[in-house]
């Protein structure tokens, strides 16, 4: 078991390092740097900036050093908790990101939790009552989740919400709480607004998980130990829930690891559509403006948080499956 933990931990660290590299590369890709864009913006609005000022700025922001140096410099800053300054907003990156990052994670985690809460019972029901009406309904919902990309779903729901209910379903807070400082009331307001974005984000994953659960459970239900359990006189409910579900839960739980990055990814676009105060819209603007520190930090932090979340879910898997605990194999 320990070996397994250590291995996953090493992989997590490796992944984080890869994320940092990747995010740094991505940001450096566009030709020119932030200052090029800044200058263009300045001259477009009629401002003027001298070459010396440009050079000075360049030196100040370290933009004249070789890339590897810039990377190391950045990493050192990050590890000390200093995420740099957003060149566009002229404020520390951590300030600009503010609540958005962890709101992103809240929505994503809510989506994952909702996915589980929905997919598990529906999947079980679907398998046990194969070909019933419930099964077909579940399959139908599954198709919607499968075929409609989350941002389209958000668009359609937003439109329907507007035309049918004259309600704006976007946003994570009611107006009065949007800018207010944190309080229990604000937290409750958030909870009230969470289900819909969580559902939209999670639907695709839910559909997939329902299919996996259904398929796995159908396989398990045919196995001898289920028959044995029944032959020992167990009531039907327990026969299903205690045995095959527990076994079918394994591949289920192992997909959670990949659900989180998928949902976080999806939240970027969906939050644009639904105007959620998460990291998505901010990232888009930062990328377009080539605001290196901001964009890079967002990508890095998203990656790190996702890896941590995945690691936690691996721990969960370990707890569920005794075979891993005892033999230490994946």
């Amino acid at each position, binding site marked *: 078991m320990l070996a397994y933990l250590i291995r996953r931990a090493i*992989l997590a660290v*490796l*992944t984080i390092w*890869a*994320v940092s590299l*990747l*995010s740094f590369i*991505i*940001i450096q*890709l*566009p*030709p020119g740097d932030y200052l090029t864009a800044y200058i263009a913006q300045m001259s477009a609005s009629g401002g003027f900036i001298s070459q010396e000022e440009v050079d000075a700025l360049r030196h100040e922001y370290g933009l004249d050093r070789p890339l590897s140096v810039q990377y190391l410099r950045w990493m050192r800053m990050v590890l000390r908790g200093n995420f740099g300054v957003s060149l566009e907003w002229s404020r520390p990156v951590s300030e600009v990101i503010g609540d958005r990052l962890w709101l992103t994670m809240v929505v994503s985690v809510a989506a994952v939790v909702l996915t589980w809460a929905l997919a598990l019972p529906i999947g079980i029901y679907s398998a046990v009552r194969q070909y019933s009406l419930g099964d077909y309904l579940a399959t139908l919902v599954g*198709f919607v989740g*499968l*075929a*409609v*990309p989350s*941002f*389209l779903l958000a*668009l*359609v729901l*937003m*439109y329907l919400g*507007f*035309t049918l209910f004259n309600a*704006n379903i*976007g946003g994570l807070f009611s107006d009065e709480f949007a800018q207010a400082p944190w309080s229990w009331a604000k937290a409750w307001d958030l909870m009230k607004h969470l289900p819909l974005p969580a559902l939209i984000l999670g639907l695709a994953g839910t559909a997939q998980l329902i299919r996996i659960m259904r398929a796995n459970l159908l396989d398990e239900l045919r196995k001898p130990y289920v028959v044995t359990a029944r032959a020992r006189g167990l009531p039907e409910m327990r026969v299903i829930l205690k045995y095959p579900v527990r076994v079918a839960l394994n591949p289920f739980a192992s997909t959670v*690891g*990949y659900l989180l*990055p*998928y949902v*976080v*990814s*999806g939240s*970027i*676009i969906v939050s*644009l*559509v639904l105007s959620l105060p998460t990291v998505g819209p901010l*990232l*888009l603007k930062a*990328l*377009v403006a*080539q605001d290196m520190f901001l*964009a890079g930090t*967002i*990508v890095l932090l*998203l*990656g790190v948080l*996702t*890896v941590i979340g*995945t690691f936690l879910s691996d721990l969960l898997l370990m707890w569920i499956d005794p075979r891993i605990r005892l033999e230490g194999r994946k």
Partner: protein
Amino acid sequence: MAERAPVLREEPEETIPVTAEERISVATQWQLMWWRFRRHRLAMVGTIVVLLFYLAVLLADFLAYVEPTASEAQRSLLPPQRIHWFDEGRLSPHVYGLTGRRDPVTLKRVYTPDPGKRIRVRFFVRGGFEYQLLGIIPSTLHLLGVEGASPEETLFLLGTDEQGRDLWSRLMYGTRTSLTIGLAGVGLSLVLGVVLGGISGLYGGVVDTVIQRVIEILRSIPTIPLWMGLAAALPNDWTVMQVYLAITIIISLIGWTELARVVRGRFLSLREEDFVMAAELSGCGQTRIIFTHLVPSFLSHIIAATTLAIPVMIISETSLSFLGLGLRPPAISWGVLLQQAQTIQALAISPWLLISAVPVIIVILALNFMGDGLRDAADPYGH
């Protein structure tokens, strides 16, 4: 005392009609696959739909009736026209022409359908813009057109967008772009996936571990920010073609991991199969083993996985273009079309802009059904 072994009775040569059971045992792998696939009704429906869509790709110019880039500010944001099929009892499809008048309050020119102006709609019209069917044959034949069309009297079956461009025609071209980029992307993904997954699965060892770790890492991080970053890095001054190519490469980078996993998995399990060992023992060289023995075994799985990867490509391109980071105007794709429907305000005023979402959903569903059927049929000899 040794007995003579009984002589086998010689059966007379006759044609014995093959029973249904026995047909199964002599069918080829592909026949079995086809039979199993055929039983999957949803998959059959999906396949037909997909084929129809790709037919539309070929005939995009024919199906459109105006140039997709022809814009007229005056016709901005017009709602879809209804085709009225009967004119005083006779079958005579027509649409109502528009009359413009100045709205007394906003002082803007407002166009409303005028039942007085009837413009006949005709099918298979020679008129409208010229194009080249299949890239070679010049033609002016279009599916729909209006009779005696003057510049003001045109069709807009699905309404117009903000620049006054006809949405139906744009949708036809958008379909073409989205579906072809999907194919191109999946092709690249396939190459990447087969090469890397194949090496990984066949040779194992360090190479396998490295590639596997790379795939793991890619799977455990949210990748959309990465692709957004890549796409945002494309210089503004690139041509449409260059952007198209770059986007194809980017979306292929999104999907290759799944294909590589499938290929690797298949190679790993096939490597252990007895028939591979038998081939080795009978002296087959590596290449022969790979192409004659291994490939037919996993080809069907690869086809299924590839089909299931196309929707991923389509969604990726649509998402990127929707964000403004993918294909850019004047290129037209489903994502580009949907970009105009981003905000609630836009949707409130002109909800028909959302129509481009419909083919997206239909194609993705159809491809998924088709891929599911292929996957189920892929192993006709049992899972």
